[in-house]
């Protein structure tokens, strides 16, 4: 419960942070909100010699609109994402998801970049970022690159981030006009993490049929994923109860569900189906033709 000794570096810029990471290599860890890292340090499960604090790099904490996309800096706190006017008006699903993370204290400290980079299988954000088809910006000594959310989450707590790279932002196209969305989760009672979390997004065409449905699911498997079978089952259908339920029945298709003391694989799969249906229902109810 007492971390081993480390040297603390507060980076003033992304460039400086990249330089520090490059200099110390595997001896360094990035510190942002600290919500995943600090418990690991306290248990001495990780004993990095250097912590590079990127939470106070001004540009990382901003939410801006650039070239028609909304860019959320990696160090934006959950509370900030939840309450940002820009995000609320153009990326309501992300704001709703952020407001469902942990509790007030967690939301005041935790950052979106930290959550995505840590890629806990039960984290909330990945579901919404997948459904919103976000693009993760990674910057390293070789420059910057963009990775689609669908390529970013690789496996259990494993992402596309390469050694030396820093996740600096995640960007999104604004929601289409009239889009309906919902993020619903079944909370793990102790941690508040998602036993299952479903982010659903859809629009309705002139005839009132679903189109462009996108469903991101977290908590169920080793990593968050897009429920393609659900999406294809609902697109082109009127969002009546049966159609949504039939589509949601595919929520756990092809996924190897996690099991622990809080929920068995069977139950998680069932929760995924139920919450997917409910999220689709809520999204459909909010969608405008």
């Amino acid at each position: 419960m007492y971390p081993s000794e480390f040297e603390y570096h507060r980076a003033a810029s992304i460039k400086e942070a990249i330089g520090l990471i490059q200099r110390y290599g595997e001896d360094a860890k990035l510190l942002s909100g600290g919500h995943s890292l600090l418990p690991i340090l306290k248990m001495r499960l990780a004993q990095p010699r250097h912590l590079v604090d990127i939470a106070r790099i001004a540009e990382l904490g901003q939410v801006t609109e650039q070239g028609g996309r909304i860019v959320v800096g990696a160090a934006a706190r959950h509370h900030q994402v939840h309450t940002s006017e820009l995000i609320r008006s153009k990326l309501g699903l992300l704001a709703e998801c952020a407001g469902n993370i942990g509790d007030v204290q967690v939301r005041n400290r935790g950052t979106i970049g930290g959550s995505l980079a840590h890629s806990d299988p039960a984290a909330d954000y990945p579901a919404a970022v997948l459904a919103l088809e976000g693009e993760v910006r990674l910057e390293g000594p070789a420059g910057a690159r963009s990775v689609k959310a669908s390529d970013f989450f690789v496996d259990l707590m494993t992402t596309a981030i390469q050694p030396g790279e820093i996740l600096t932002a995640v960007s999104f196209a604004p929601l289409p006009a009239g889009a309906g969305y919902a993020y619903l989760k079944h909370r793990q009672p102790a941690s508040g993490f998602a036993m299952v979390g479903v982010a659903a997004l859809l629009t309705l065409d002139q005839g009132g049929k679903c189109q462009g449905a996108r469903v991101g699911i977290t908590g169920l498997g080793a990593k968050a994923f897009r429920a393609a079978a659900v999406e294809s089952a609902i697109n082109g259908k009127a969002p009546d109860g049966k159609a949504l339920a039939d589509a949601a029945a595919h929520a756990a298709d092809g996924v190897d569900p996690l099991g622990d003391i809080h929920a068995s694989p069977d139950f998680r799969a069932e929760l995924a189906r139920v919450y997917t249906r409910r999220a689709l229902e809520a999204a459909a109810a909010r969608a405008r033709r």
Partner: protein
Amino acid sequence: MAVIPKFVGERIKRREDPRLIQGQATYADDVRLTGMLTAVILRSPHAHAKINSVDLTAARKAPGVVCVLAGEDVRDSIATLPCVAPAERIPFHPTLAVGKVRYVGEPVAVAVAADAYRAQDALDLVEVDYDPLDAVVDPEKAIVDGAPILHEEFGTNVALNMSVPSPAMDEAMRNADKVVRFRIVNQRLAPIPMEPRGVVAQWNPGQRHLTVWSSTQIPHMLRSRLAEMLKLGENRIRVIAPEVGGGFGCKLNVYGEEALVAHLSMRLGRPVKWIERRRENIAGTTHGRDQITYLEVPIKNDGTVLGIKGRFICDMGAYLQLLTPAVPGFSALMMTGCYKIPAISFEQVMAFTNKIATDAYRGAGRPEACYIAERVMDVVAGELGLDPAEVRRRNFIPKSAFPATTAAGLVYDSGDYEQALDKALAMVDYKTLRAEQDAARKQGRYIGIGLASYVEICGIGPSAMLPPKVQGWESATVRVEPDSRVTVLTGVSPHGQGQETTFAQLVADALGIDIDDVSVIHGDTAIVQYGVGTFGSRATALGGTALMMAVGKLQEKLKKIASTMMEAPPDQLVFNQRTIALASDISKSIPLQQVVTAAYDFKQPIPGMEPGLDATSFFEPTGCTFPFGTHVAVVEIDPETGVVKFLRYVAVDDCGKIISPLLVEGQIHGGIAQGIAQALYEEVVYDESGQLVTATLMDYAVPRAEMLPHYELASTVTPSPLNPLGVKGVGEAGTIGSTPCVVNAVLDALRPLGVKQIDMPLKPEKIWRAIKAAHKG
């Protein structure tokens, strides 16, 4: 001058709170002494293992380290940890493991350094060579032949096997129309006080005097046991319970760390601090509950319960802590609840397992008992197709029967169980509610109504009823200072209960002074006369009575002095608005200060009277108090997810007379929260190999506000005849009534499906599975 109001019975805010919420309280970790060192403890990663060797060589060379010790280094200096409750087999309980470890989290070594980081660095260098052994975590498996044995010297894992048969039970079985049989489990819970444990010790070699600050509920008892463990005179030890951030029973104990930190200070001649971390708290501080009960209940077809027969398997954990084997006794004695059940018999098998010891946890034996009694009532109602409220009513001990002697031999002081039930039923409009439930069921909704009529036992006494070295009395000293302000020294040791407020209310009213004229001191054995402590909802019933006895002595003395000054007989004088006045005409008075000054300055001595205004009383009760009440929960189950949603939560509690309504409500709120937590959320889980799975608050589900209902509270007032205040106790009531009430509500919701039993905690998955199985079946 402003008129001083009356305080007893008024909704006044806790006087403790401003310092607590402004960071001005002094907890153990706030004690900072010159030259102080910090100790960190290495704990066993194994549930059961032989220790071949402990190599401290490298650890002792670590930078900044002053001392590293393991079991062999202290076993001759510190005696076994005490268990004062009777048991057939009480094992040697070392402060640091010797030869073997028996649970995950058992202390193995300690490092002392300038700070905790250096100490932890040193511990990382300790090399312990373990031979892992098979572990046993299930108490039912621990007591069968061939189970791994924890304490080889006993050749068995049975700490105590107690059988209390009853001829009345045989008769009840013969006369029964039916015998209902079922098994219930009170799962293992972790108390999780907001502040974990913490100890600071300072040995003064010149004075040969030890001061120990410990986050404890029992400073005096701790001093007595430390004196034995460390072989010091009690007059050489001062124990201070500084601000204590909750205990819930887990600090009603004597822990190895308390003796170890004291020993380290004596050994090193420097102050030493140890602060428990949350992971240590969950692994290494006593747990509660963990009882399995097989019940046989002979009944008549009209719902009359003729007896309750229980076979208990009680999980002691690896060692016996202070009162470990005493806790289950209350479960058996109280399992007939508030019902006139003529026969009781029980067997209790207390088993050693590779887990931390169990001991008192809020309710300590009575929540388990109430869970039995209140499940019995609902099971009987279900079996006979009767209304659960009606079954309770038919079995209640009637108001006219008090004081009532139960089949277990307890004497219930006072009660009116039907009144509390009626009030609770009226609050929920029970008839309409049942009709709404029927209508909802027809729509496919699962609404459940759960009742629990509880009775519990508080202020346990007389002393002969308690184990050796634990007393039933309580003490108080009251001092009117020369400026007529009052100091109270109470033997209880509040750690959230608020006696700094309630005791000041009592004294202020008794002496006609303002509440701010009274200060209440507790938790320091060098200042306060010997006391017993705070546990078992005893502080106000016993400590408050001792306080009023001491106040009475001072009232008498003050009146006697005033009588000489006013030329009126003492029995015609009253305390009013900082004066002593004629009862018949309070305008005829003299200032209290004048009388106090006379007592201290003593210029006109009164024959036979000593100077000063200081009185001490010890109150030994003649019996226990028995608070009671009825809780009603209305829940709705989401059949797709098994999630339980509260629609209503009504609690009618009777704790006798109420001194401080706001504090009573606070106690009930917190109690209900913890009781609901047992019903729905909390469970300590060890896996088969004895690893603690719920090792952090990321997995051990202490409820958040959003997981709890809005409470609708009401009370009835049935004074206790056993103390002059008429109070009973309220610290545990909420915990005791709420657990069965919520379980009954959930099972009532599932009744149409034929679901009869789900073991706590009623997690969504268990409910979902029960529903699924019912649909299949």
